[in-house]
């Protein structure tokens, strides 16, 4: 049992925080939300220089060989700073999938370019029909077809809620190449040049202003070489990385939640009304105490999943718990913040809380919402075995009908006798 980070991890966290406080102030976040592209190539370059883009890739692919915990530490700080960058899309969802399933050639070609900031990638997965609920993140939701045509494949269909597609160099398109017996059979991952003819990208106007797009594939030709992993067998590696992404998104929300907590408590201490800091009010304390409980609970659920992943231990349950809880918990945390900050937290030109709230909504839904993970979790826990039976000799002293269990000790017995007496008296009276 050890709930702390190592010294090296703590150092990484400190560096990250210092860097982000300088390079990613609130002003930038606000500007990027209101911006048409919402992306600062300059900042992206700096992230590359910091080594963050290749943090978790092996050194042979231009990475730093960091651990999954390192990645989580960075993501938590990014969440705290609300870094507006296609980090999750490029580095995690696409990059790690390539690392997981790509050929040596693909890895050697692409990963270093991701690591040095030359390429932005985007995962084109979710579709209109499935966007209503958890199906978006299940193989059942994949209906965009890629049909063989000579040496190539032709992709047709529409992907929705594709994060960062508008600035992507490549789209990692999850397509159906055959109808298998099971939904996850027949899914193939194509790495598509985003400038290929037939692709159109239209940014959707979302709560968070975080640039999710509709991506339409109209007879888009892709070569067989662009397949990441095995034909028809793309689901397994993709699912693995989506889980990683989900847990890192939790880390992001933990960082964001911690910052919301700090802002809220600071306001409670410094805002004076009725001559006193408002934090003296139990109403305000109530909000703050619940806020702490939201952030702490999310943190430990997330860290546990992160640790298990980094140790390669089975952790379906822990992942599902982390994302199912943190998604909604973070929204509740922001809501508590709003209750304390009131008008001040509602104002968008200077206020920072609206940014957290709105981005929290996007994170809540991205890579699966609470309903999706609660169902996943249930599939795990319905297999829990019953508690082991006690093996001691049966004594026959426990299962005695109430009223016949004469208590042993005097004060108990007195009370019991009195009740029995009253009962008898009433019975007598009735007769």
């Amino acid at each position, binding site marked *: 049992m050890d709930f702390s980070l190592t010294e090296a991890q703590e150092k990484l966290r400190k560096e990250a925080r210092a860097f982000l406080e300088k390079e990613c102030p609130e002003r930038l976040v606000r500007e990027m939300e209101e911006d048409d592209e919402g992306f600062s190539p300059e900042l992206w370059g700096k992230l590359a220089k910091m080594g963050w883009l290749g943090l978790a890739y092996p050194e042979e692919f231009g990475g730093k060989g960091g651990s999954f915990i390192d990645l989580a530490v960075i993501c938590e700080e990014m969440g705290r700073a609300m870094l507006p960058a296609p980090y999750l899309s490029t580095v995690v969802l696409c990059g790690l999938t390539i690392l997981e399933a790509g050929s040596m050639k693909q890895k050697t070609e692409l990963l270093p370019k991701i690591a040095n900031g030359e390429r932005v990638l985007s995962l084109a997965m979710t579709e209109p029909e499935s966007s*209503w609920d958890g199906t978006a993140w299940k193989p059942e939701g994949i209906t965009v077809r890629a049909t063989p045509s000579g040496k190539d494949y032709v992709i047709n269909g529409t992907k929705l809620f594709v994060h960062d597609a508008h600035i992507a160099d490549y789209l990692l398109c999850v397509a159906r190449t055959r109808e298998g017996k099971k939904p996850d059979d027949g899914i193939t991952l194509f790495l598509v040049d985003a400038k290929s003819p037939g692709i159109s990208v239209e940014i959707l106007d979302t709560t968070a202003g975080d640039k999710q797009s509709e991506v339409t594939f109209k007879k888009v030709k892709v070569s067989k070489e662009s397949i990441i992993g095995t034909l028809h067998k793309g689901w397994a590696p993709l699912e693995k990385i989506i889980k990683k992404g989900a847990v890192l998104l939790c880390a992001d929300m933990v960082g964001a939640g911690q910052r919301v907590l700090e802002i809220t408590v600071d306001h409670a201490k410094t805002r004076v009304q*009725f001559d006193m800091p408002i934090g003296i009010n139990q*109403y305000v304390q109530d909000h703050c105490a619940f806020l702490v409980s939201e952030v702490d609970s999310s943190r430990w659920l997330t860290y546990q999943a992160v640790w298990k992943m980094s140790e390669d231990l089975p952790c379906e349950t822990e992942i599902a718990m982390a994302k199912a809880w943190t998604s909604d918990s973070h929204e509740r945390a922001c809501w508590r913040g709003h209750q304390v900050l*009131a008008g001040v937290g509602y104002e968008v030109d200077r206020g920072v809380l609206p940014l957290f709230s709105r981005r929290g909504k996007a994170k809540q839904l991205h890579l699966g919402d609470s309903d999706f993970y609660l169902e996943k979790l249930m599939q795990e826990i319905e297999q829990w075995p019953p508690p082991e039976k006690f093996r001691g000799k049966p004594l026959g002293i426990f299962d005695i009908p109430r009223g016949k269990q004469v208590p042993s000790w005097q004060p108990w017995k007195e009370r019991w006798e009195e009740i029995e007496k009253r009962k008898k008296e009433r019975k007598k009276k009735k007769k």
Partner: protein
Amino acid sequence: MDFGFTEKQEKLRKAAREFFLNEMPEDFDPDVETMFSLTKEQTAFWMKFQKKAGKKGYLTPGWSKETGGLGYGPIEQGIVEEEWGFTGGRWPNASGLHIAGPAVQVFGTEEQKKKFLPGIAQGTAIWNQAFTEPDAGSDEANQKTTAVLKGNYYVLNGQKTFITTLIKPDYLYTLARTAETEPKHQGISLFLVPADAPGITYQAQGTMGFGTQLNIYYKNVKVPKENLLGELNRGFYHAMAAFEFERSGTGNPANAKRRLTEFIQFCKKTKRNGKPLIKDTDVRKTVAKMAIDIEIQRLIAWEAVWRHSQKGQLPPKGYDLSGFFNKINSTQHPETMMHIMGLYGQLRSGAKWAKFAGKIERRWQVARSVHPAGTLEVNKIVVAGRGLGLPRIPARFNKMIAESLQPKKK
């Protein structure tokens, strides 16, 4: 006991509804339209519309005929407000109709009544309430804006903030300090300030859900002496009394009911995994629960209206839960509806692929802060204190307590 209305009242309801339905443009959707920072054309429409309603008497049905109303009682006023609420529209002069107007009625001089009430009743004037200050939020008596009498004028200096308006105001219904007193409530006065008086500047700030609110700066603003409303230094008490009028809103639940009714239609028409949303067990329970919440809000609002209509003949109740339920419902319902919509929930009105016209997203943002007339906490304090008679720490201890906290900070 009677939860219905008289025939005459039903006739009034029908007439008001017909008027609103006939006059509202068919391409207007209350939940989609920006409603703040209106364009020129939108401004013109709303002013014209408000004037038309004024002519019919639907702005102030409860006011006497002399003051431009229809001479009805609170029940009838509640009926018209309910019908208006159901359209989802907002009167540009809401502050004038519900706050400033009633205050002038009660505390105004004959001259003030003559001067200010017709414009409100006829829908030609726009009023804004300008009470809140950076340091006077829930602690409204902490007014830093000062009003100093110089000759025939009060000279105002200070800043107001979080002022909501749909249209450039004509008048500001404002609080300012006219004496340094302890307790602070006893040195505040109410002023009716022409909004274009020299020295007033306005600055817009954005709020969640694409709204805007105003900062208002008074710099040596000269307000004629006769624009003091009510007694000097009694402004805080006048204002609190006038708030009573704001609270008994039958419009809010009607507005919520419109939205739920539309949402039900949406759930009937929209399929998820091949099945209409409305067939989903979760959705069914959720929608039914919201319907109850709204019905409660409606009943509580009507109870307040009815009590108002019985004034003096009933023991005082001390609390009104309409604000309480309004805040709870308007915070939770958008959340609940948004959850049903999955990834689509985050699409804003106007966005491609937006479902249900993105209405819920907008409400969700607005719901991040439902604080008009104070937070939910303020409502609870009123219920507990005024309603149930639970004790409260007297305000005079606050400074003492605050000072005692200081050394710790060292």
